[in-house]
């Protein structure tokens, strides 16, 4: 019987699960910066005792990252070790997911939305609520106080479903291949909600039982997985979801434990790839009151866009992929401490300076990798200085020879030499990474261009950038690489986690649910694959301006 004894309790596991998954399913959250792919080595655990054959043998990925003394002491990477029997383990402090690191502020738009909260202070409604933006990569949770119409505390947690795949297609594929994965993925997200809610309540010195209302928004696949509904049909054309209507269930029906009697509402969805996240963002941004030609863009893995047009709202999904969140990039990582989020190339000397994300002064000043914003910054800087051709190839004539290296056989540009990085290995941007960026930005740009074309105009009037990534992106860099059509910088506004703001609004204001339904029924969907000009538009968008 697979099980883990840890922290004075016994967690039952399923044979074949990794230690990481079993721990999270048991409510013990570890750091997993790379999403369980064996790249960050943050999920170290120490096996103190194990039944014979209870855990898989250490593999090459672990041996490469754990030094000999660690291995002799029984240290393993939780994401790589697979359980088939009973083990006892110890979790080092550094491996635990710390609520301090996870803390964040309320969404940008929230301050502007207070005038829409008319039901504040009403005693008929529950006082405390939880708003959740269930992202493919990041889950953001906000503790809301209806009495004062404020966000008391907020937190973000990496979506642990990442062990089943970075993007929605991989997670859908996992269910198609093994239907048992559905329940496993549902458990992982429910446990993350329990963890986040527990810590938020602790920070607010609140009894978890006081949180009676929960609103969750997310893309269609995430909402299906939350409800334990099969997302399989969304994996193949025409990508039909099992349901699109809003749902209201008792928290215990989904296995939520921090308050089993709370009521969970998920807002309505539009299609298989246009979910309640963009609907919530549109509500928060008051898109239907904006001038025609305003595009709300969620620059995330799914690349959803909703436009205000003279004929109403039109939405599309661009299947951007996870390149903008650091995934599929050789040295890519989440926007956490140690991530390069911007680079500057000195024009005269060609010296590269990297700016690092560093949340706390005591955290290391050495880079560990590069996050989405950093990748865009690097590509933009290379274009400006002429080291990248418009087609995206490295210009071997202009790039300094000392920077042109081979990384595991691939052509790459050196960003950080070995002696300056956290791992002691050089950090670079490969030619293949640039191609991945081209594909991602090509998809989003093609979506924008086709939407604009449908509106009958030549360019958007105004762009609203939403999503966690949308908040940190440098607009000038985005324009340089052609992620957006040429626009004056002041026509592009960063609105932060608008989906989260919309979910918060729905917690405070019950009438928002009706408004969400109206948006869903009135929004016209633009299927990019059905557009005859799609291939030409996409191919054209792949190059840099």
């Amino acid at each position, binding site marked *: 019987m697979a099980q883990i004894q840890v922290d004075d309790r016994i967690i039952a596991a399923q044979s074949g699960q990794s230690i990481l998954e079993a721990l999270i399913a048991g409510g013990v959250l570890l750091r997993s910066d790379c999403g369980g792919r064996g790249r960050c080595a943050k999920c170290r655990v120490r096996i103190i005792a194990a039944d014979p054959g209870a855990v898989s043998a250490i593999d090459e990925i672990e041996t490469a990252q754990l030094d000999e003394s660690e291995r002799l002491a029984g240290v393993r990477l939780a994401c790589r070790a697979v359980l088939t029997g009973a083990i006892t383990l110890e979790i080092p402090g550094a491996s635990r997911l710390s609520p301090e690191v996870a803390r964040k502020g309320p969404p940008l738009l929230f301050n502007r939305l207070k005038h829409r909260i008319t039901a504040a202070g009403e005693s008929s409604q529950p006082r405390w609520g939880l708003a959740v933006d269930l992202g493919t990569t990041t889950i953001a949770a906000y503790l809301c106080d209806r009495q004062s119409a404020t966000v008391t505390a907020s937190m973000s947690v990496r979506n642990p479903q990442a062990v089943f795949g970075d993007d929605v*297609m991989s997670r*859908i*594929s996992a269910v198609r291949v093994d239907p048992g994965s559905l329940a496993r993925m549902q458990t992982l997200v429910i446990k993350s909600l329990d963890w986040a809610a527990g810590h938020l309540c602790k920070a607010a010195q609140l009894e978890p039982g006081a949180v009676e209302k929960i609103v969750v928004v997310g893309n269609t696949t995430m909402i299906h997985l939350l409800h334990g509904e099969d997302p399989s049909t969304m*994996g*193949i*054309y025409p990508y039909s979801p099992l349901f699109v209507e809003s749902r209201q269930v008792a928290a215990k029906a989904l296995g939520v434990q921090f308050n089993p009697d709370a009521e969970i509402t998920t807002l309505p969805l539009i299609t298989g790839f246009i979910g309640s996240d963009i609907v919530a963002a549109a509500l928060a941004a008051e898109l239907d009151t904006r001038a025609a030609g305003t595009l709300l863009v969620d620059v995330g893995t799914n690349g959803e866009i909703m436009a205000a047009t003279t004929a109403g709202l039109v939405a599309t999904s661009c299947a951007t992929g996870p390149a903008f969140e650091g995934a599929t990039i050789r040295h890519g990582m989440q926007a956490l401490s140690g991530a390069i989020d911007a680079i500057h190339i000195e024009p005269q000397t060609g010296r590269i300076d990297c700016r690092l994300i560093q949340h706390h002064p005591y955290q290391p000043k050495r880079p560990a990798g590069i996050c989405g914003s950093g990748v865009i910054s690097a590509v933009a800087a290379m274009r400006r200085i002429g080291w990248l051709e418009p087609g995206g*190839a490295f210009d071997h004539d202009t790039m300094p020879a000392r920077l042109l290296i081979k990384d595991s056989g691939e052509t790459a540009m050196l960003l950080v030499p070995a002696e300056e990085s956290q791992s002691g290995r050089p950090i670079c941007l490969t030619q293949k990474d640039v191609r991945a960026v081209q594909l991602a930005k090509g998809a989003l740009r093609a979506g924008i261009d086709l939407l604009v074309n449908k509106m009958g105009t030549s360019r958007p009037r105004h762009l609203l950038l939403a999503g966690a990534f949308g908040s940190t992106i440098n607009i000038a860099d985005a324009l340089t690489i052609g992620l957006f059509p040429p626009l004056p910088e002041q026509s592009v506004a960063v609105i932060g986690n608008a989906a989260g703001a919309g979910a918060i609004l729905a917690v405070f204001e019950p009438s928002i649910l009706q408004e969400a339904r109206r948006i869903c029924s009135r929004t016209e969907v633009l299927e990019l694959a059905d557009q005859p000009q799609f*291939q030409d538009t996409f*191919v054209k968008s792949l190059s840099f301006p």
Partner: protein
Amino acid sequence: MSDFSELTDALIKGDEARVLELTRKAMDAGTPAGEILKTGLIVGMDVVGEKMENEEMFIPEVLMSARAMGAAVEILKPHLSAEDAASKGVVVIGTVKGDLHDIGKNLVSMMLESAGLDVHNIGVDIAPDQFVSAVQEKNANLVCLSALLTTTMPMMKSTIEALVESGVRDSVKVLVGGAPVTQGFADEIGADGYAPDAGSAAKLAKSMV
């Protein structure tokens, strides 16, 4: 033997006007059409394929080169000897059921056509029995399956099974490709070949017919 370096260069650069100009110039100078095709153009497309494999050239550029090649082949065709014009093999290519991605598949299709293969690009969202019908109707030597989603990859296995069930599996080679596809997966489903990109796919396909 003529020096085709200028023609090859123009093809690699995707300069269609220059490719056509140099092709006509060579023909006017008496160079046999088959030699221009083989030593100038096909050699050039092989280089394009290699550059695509090592990421030096990307989709838009390869597409432009493939289009330039196609245009040049059109003017050479009427002048090719029976031997040169003879089909090097019959290929059926398509994207599997449930999947609409076609750019990569179209690139492979164009590159194989340029190499003298008889290519039938049957499109996207193609069911297993449609692949079987096409293979039977055209007497194909090679069938190329494309899938760009992890969720549609299993359709490749179903398609191969359909080929087996209808008794044509032994008369045709199967080549699979697409971003999420791997050599391991190709081996698992019993495909005869796998290529990670359009460039290597064209090269492998030519050796398989």
